[in-house]
Each structure stands twice: as C-alpha cells, then as structure tokens.
C-alpha cells in the first residue's frame, strides 16, 4: 500500500502528510483518519464494556445468595451506578459513534468525516472522562457516585466528592458526544457523493443522522441538570432542595427530558444496522424503506413527549399520567412498523444464517420482548406496582443488551471483513451468538418474575423467596460474561490469522462500502464517485471515485 500511496501522491498531493499512513503511537494520538478514529472508538467501547461487565458480575456475585456476602451496601450501590453510567456513556454510545465514523464516509462516498481534527478531539476526551469515572472516583473518600445512573437529587446533592468527579465526567463525555454528532450531521448533510440523495441514503446513515440530532438536543440538557446538582452541592443554590424552595421532583423532570431520548440514542443506530443486515442475508431489498425513514423520525420526535412515564409514582395528576401513558404507547406504533418491515424483508427471502444475521434476528426477537414489557410498563396503573422492581431491570436489559449490544455484535461481524481484510471464524461467531442468546435469557428472563413478585432493584440483599431466580440469574450472568471472551479471542485471532476476505464477502450486500477494495483503503473516496443509487443505499452503478 505504501508504495502505491507514494506513487499516487504527486497527482493529488498538496499536503503529502494527509496521504501517507502515519506510523507509531502518533497515528493514534493525532489520528484524523475516520477509520483510525472509528477503531479507537470501538476499542475504547469494548474495554468499557469489559469494565462495566465486571461491575455487573460484582453485582450478580452479591445477589447469588440472600444476605451480604462480598460488599457493603454502599459499595454495591457504587457498582450499580457505575455499571449503568459506563455501559451507557462508555460502551454503547461510543461504539455506535465508532461504527458511524468507520462506515458513514464509506457508505455515502465521503473522503472522511467533515471535521477531522474535531473528530480526534471528540475521541480523546473520552479516556480522561472514563478515568475520572472509573479509577479515580473509586479511590476518593466516600467512593464513587452511588445514587444510581440517574443521579437523582437529593441523593446526588448529598454524596461525597465521587459525585463531583462523575458530574465532570458527564460534562466531558457530553462535549465529546456533541462534537461527534456535529461531525456526523455535517458529514451526512454536506459530504454525500453525487447521486446519494437523502431518500436513497442507507438506513444506517439515516439512523445516525437522527441520533446525532437527538444527542445535540438532549446532551446539553443533561449537562444543565448535573450543573444544577453541582451548584446545589457547592454554591448554595437550592434547585432541588425543598428546604430552600427547590423541588427534588424538578430534577427528575429535567433528567428524563434528557433520559428518554437517550434511550432512542442507544436504539436508533441499532435499527439502522439491522436494516442492512436483514436485507443482505435475505437477499432482498429492505421492505418499506420510506416508512422506515419516517418511523425512525417519528420515534425521535415522540421520544421528547414521554419523559414523565419514568415518574408515574411522583404524585402526578391523573390527566398527566393518562397523557404520558398514551403517548408512550404511541411509540409502539412506529416501532411496530419497523419490526413488521424487517419481517417483511425476510418473507420469502433466500435467507442464510451467518453470524451477523443470527445476531440481527436475535435482536428482532429479543428487542420485541423488551418492547412488549415496555408497553406493559407504560400502563400507569401497572407501572405504579412495578416501579423500581426487577421487572424494569429485565425490560431495559432486553432492549439494551439484546437490543443495542446484539446489534453492535452483528455490526462488528458484518463489517469486520471490510475493516480488517480478513474473515472472522464463522464457527466461533455462531458459537458466540448461541452462547450469548442462551445465557442472556437465563440471566434476564427470571428478572421479570422477580420484579412481578416485588423484588426491588439496587438493593444488595433480598428476601429468601427470591433466592432461586437470583441464583439462576447470577449463573447466567457469569456464563454470558465468559462468552464475551470468545468474541474477544475470535476478533484478536482473526485480525492476524483470519482467512483473507473478498471485497464483497456477503452475496447480498449492495451498499457503497462493498464496492471498494477490502480492507477499505486508508484514504477512500478521495475523489467522490458518481453514483446511481437505489433505496437503502443500494448502488446500481458507480463511476469514478479514487482511493489511496
């Protein structure tokens, strides 16, 4: 490659350093190439996934039996809090940003992300934030934040300095994700190759675009509310202090104005990924592309109107409960359209079941289970009973683990050949899927029953009657965790020793990233190609387009 690079440089080279592939640690520290930054994001997200997973296993170890085994309740609360924060802000969101970085320019025919140096900055803000959250905050007096990932006041206004570190970490991660989102929006809106119109764009680009708008709309709200917590803690304000005329419920209102769209920030990119994998392995175009675009947009808009369904027990008037209940149920409509379209895509398709497809189908089945328990929880009368029980824990792990995480696995397996030029081990990929599917359900399905029986979440001890299901869930969690090491080993091994991949390893893959060499050239689409594009980014013809 290097020889070709230098050979091509004079033809295009105004700035030669933009065309050479940098070497050593500087390649990563000063990375401006969207593929390098995408890889950094993905590795960072994976390491955070392992950290957050270890915290989850600490929680499950304690809950293996009733009574206190390993941790004091204070430390247990820190584990639940940090597990949530790290998985949301450290693992899932950066993983989707990483995939968007890697794939968007390839899918829409852009040379790179719009603002390469800002891209570098938005990644390199993340490790310090993770360090603040993970390593340092456990070491300070009073330990890490222990108010739950929602950081509800008045708990969060009373805790030790671990909470301050968490607030700063959230600020930094917020700035990072806002910059990342600006990059995504500008890239998609301004850098599409000729012929790649908005209503022909790949679903993953649509999902990333809408997600990026959601992030820009709500991350500042989160920053605002944690800033209020900060000033309540240190500067004598009384936003959430009832004694000073404030209101702790106000915190929940502002937090969930961020928090509910955040749920879709973690779900919409997953929808986008699945909308490529299902058509590819069904060898059929995506069913109802236009309705998919509109469904994604309406989910995003509706997500701003349902926040108070997280607060049914705060003493809301019945009118408000009814409004939020029906508004929440309404979200099931566009979501149902999506599930219908995916199934419609598979209908009479010539399907094959490689690992990405398995994860995508697993996603559809289990995400739907999580969606159904979500509709159950949206009913105010039921939610009042189930608030803060393990039913809620079961619900959001079905949509976040079997939803977001499974789609991420699917995406990594799907694009691994394009990223690395090598194939992963299909056997171990499938093994990873079936293993994860089994133990995921062993872990989280019993939690529905625990919640219905009244077991509260975020408590290190429990009544004897809950023992069996908790033991089962703990066994499942440890096995599930073990399975992720298989994934790690498969990726590491295939990176070096995998069988070389073809430019289009999947017969049914028809988007732009499969039209270029494998592995993707370091500088792809230096000159934009002329495209004839069908729906969902299907490339009918490509003219021109240069890489090096």
């Amino acid at each position: 490659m290097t020889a070709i690079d230098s050979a091509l440089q004079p033809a295009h080279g105004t700035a030669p350093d933009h065309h050479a592939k940098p070497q050593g640690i500087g390649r990563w520290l000063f990375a401006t190439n969207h593929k390098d930054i995408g890889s950094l994001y993905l590795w960072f997200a994976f390491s955070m996934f392992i950290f957050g997973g270890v915290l989850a296993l600490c929680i499950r170890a304690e809950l293996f039996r009733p009574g206190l085994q390993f941790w004091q309740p204070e430390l247990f609360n820190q584990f639940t809090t940090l597990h949530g924060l790290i998985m949301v802000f450290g693992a899932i969101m950066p993983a989707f940003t990483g995939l968007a970085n890697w794939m968007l320019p390839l899918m829409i025919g852009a040379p790179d992300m719009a603002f390469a140096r800002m891209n570098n900055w938005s990644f390199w803000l993340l490790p310090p934030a993770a360090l603040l959250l993970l390593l340092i905050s456990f070491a300070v007096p009073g330990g890490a934040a222990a108010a739950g990932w929602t950081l509800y006041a008045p708990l969060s206004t009373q805790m030790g300095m671990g909470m301050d570190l968490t607030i700063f970490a959230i600020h930094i991660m917020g700035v990072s994700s806002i910059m990342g989102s600006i990059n995504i929006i500008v890239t998609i809106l301004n850098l599409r190759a000729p012929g790649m119109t908005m209503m022909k764009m790949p679903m993953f680009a649509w999902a990333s675009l809408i997600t990026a708008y959601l992030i820009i709309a709500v991350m500042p709200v989160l920053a605002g509310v944690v800033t209020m917590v900060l000033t309540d803690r240190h500067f004598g304000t009384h936003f959430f202090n009832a004694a000073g005329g404030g209101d702790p419920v106000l915190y929940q209102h502002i937090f969930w104005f961020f928090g509910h769209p955040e749920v879709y920030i973690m779900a919409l990119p997953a929808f986008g990924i699945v909308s490529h994998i299902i058509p590819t392995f069904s060898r059929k175009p995506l069913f109802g592309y236009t309705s998919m675009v509109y469904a994604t947009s309406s989910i995003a808009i509706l997500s701003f109107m349902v926040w108070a369904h997280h607060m049914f027990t705060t003493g809301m008037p019945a009118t408000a409960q009814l409004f939020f209940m029906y508004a929440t149920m309404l979200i099931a409509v566009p979501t149902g359209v999506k599930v219908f379209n995916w199934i419609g895509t598979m209908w009479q398709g010539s399907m094959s079941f490689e690992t990405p497809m398995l994860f995508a189908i697993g996603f559809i089945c289990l995400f739907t289970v999580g969606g159904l328990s979500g509709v159950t929880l949206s009913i105010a009368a039921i939610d009042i009973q189930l608030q803060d029980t393990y039913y809620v824990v079961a619900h959001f792990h079905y949509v976040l683990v079997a939803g977001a995480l499974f789609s991420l696995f699917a995406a990594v397996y799907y694009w691994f050949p394009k990223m690395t030029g090598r194939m992963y081990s299909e056997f171990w990929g499938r093994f990873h899927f079936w293993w994860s599917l089994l133990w995921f359900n062993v872990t989280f399905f019993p939690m529905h029953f625990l919640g219905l029986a009244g077991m509260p979440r975020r408590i290190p001890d429990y009544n004897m009657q809950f023992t069996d299901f908790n033991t089962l869930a703990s066994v499942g969690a440890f096995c599930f965790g073990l399975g992720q090491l298989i994934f790690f080993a498969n990726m590491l091994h295939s990176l070096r020793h995998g069988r070389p991949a073809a430019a289009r390893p999947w017969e049914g893959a028809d988007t732009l990233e499969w039209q270029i060499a494998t592995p993707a050239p370091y500088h792809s689409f230096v000159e934009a190609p002329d495209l004839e594009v069908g729906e969902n980014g299907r490339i009918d013809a490509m003219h021109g387009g240069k890489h090096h």
Partner: protein
Amino acid sequence: MDKPPATLHDNRLLLLKLLLLACVMFVFAWGLIPVYDALCRLTGLGSLQRPDEVGSQRLAATPLAPVLLTFDATVQPGLPWQVRPLTRTLRAVPGEFVRVDYEITNASNRQVVGQAIPRYLPAAAAEYVKKLDCFCFAQQAFAPGETRRFPVVFVVDKNVPAGLDSITLAYTVFDVPGRS
C-alpha cells in the same frame, strides 16, 4: 445534476448552527425551571404551595355543634418516657383555636431523644384536626430525669362532617436510637 459540492464554508456554517442548537438546549434545561413553575401555578399542581384552608365561608354562617375532644398518650413498654396530657377532655366549636398541654418526663438517667407520633380516632378525623403547633413536629432531646411541658395548638376544621362529634387525639412517644 446535483447541488454543487459543499465547501469548507458550508461545513463551518452548519457546524456553527449545530453548536448554537447545543447552546440553546443547554439554556433550555435551565428554562424548564420557570416553565414548570408557571405550569404548576397555572394548573394548581404544586399543591405544596397551596394555602391550608381552615373552614369555609359557606359554613361559617350557621353555628356548629361543639365536638368532644379526648386527649391520650401511650408509651411502648420498656421505653423511658412518661407522657401525660394535662387536659383529658374538652369541647370545642369547629373553627375555634384550642390549646392543650402535654407533660413529658424522661424517666431514665441518660440523655434520650424522642419522637411523638399522633393518632386519631376515628382515623378519618385526622384531616379535620389542623395542628398549628405540636411537639410531634420535631424530635425532642431530654436530659436525664428532665420534665418539660409542650403545647399543642390546633383548630377543628369547619368542614367536619355532622356525624363526627367526638375525636380522640392520642400520642405515642418513641425512642430515637443512636441520637443522644
């Protein structure tokens, strides 16, 4: 065939617009506070700030029958308190301010902190007894052997149902462990 390719200028302009949107949303988070406040005022949802109404103009015209009030106090066996109402019973017209005194003694030789919990009989009477001052509003610390008198000031609401002609107000005093 397409619009001309975006220039660096276009990209920067969009960047600035999106940054502005982020800033607006940050301000919006703070703006939610007055919005919620106004909404609660407008709809009367912030019931904490609603003034406590005693009686109503409608009923004040007709004289109301007096209600028989009985005062009592109990202590769980083994706890160091002696609690005694100085008035056992009285009759009060709804709307009239009533003041009774309770005498509480710490019968132990150590410093103790107590918390009184009121009870009403019938329980439905609770919402018609509007207390203005009560020792049960706060925890009370006692030196060894100390005796103190506390007033209880209240009004029986004028909206009290006609059938409710007798109310018993009973206090139970509990130890607050770990606070000495």
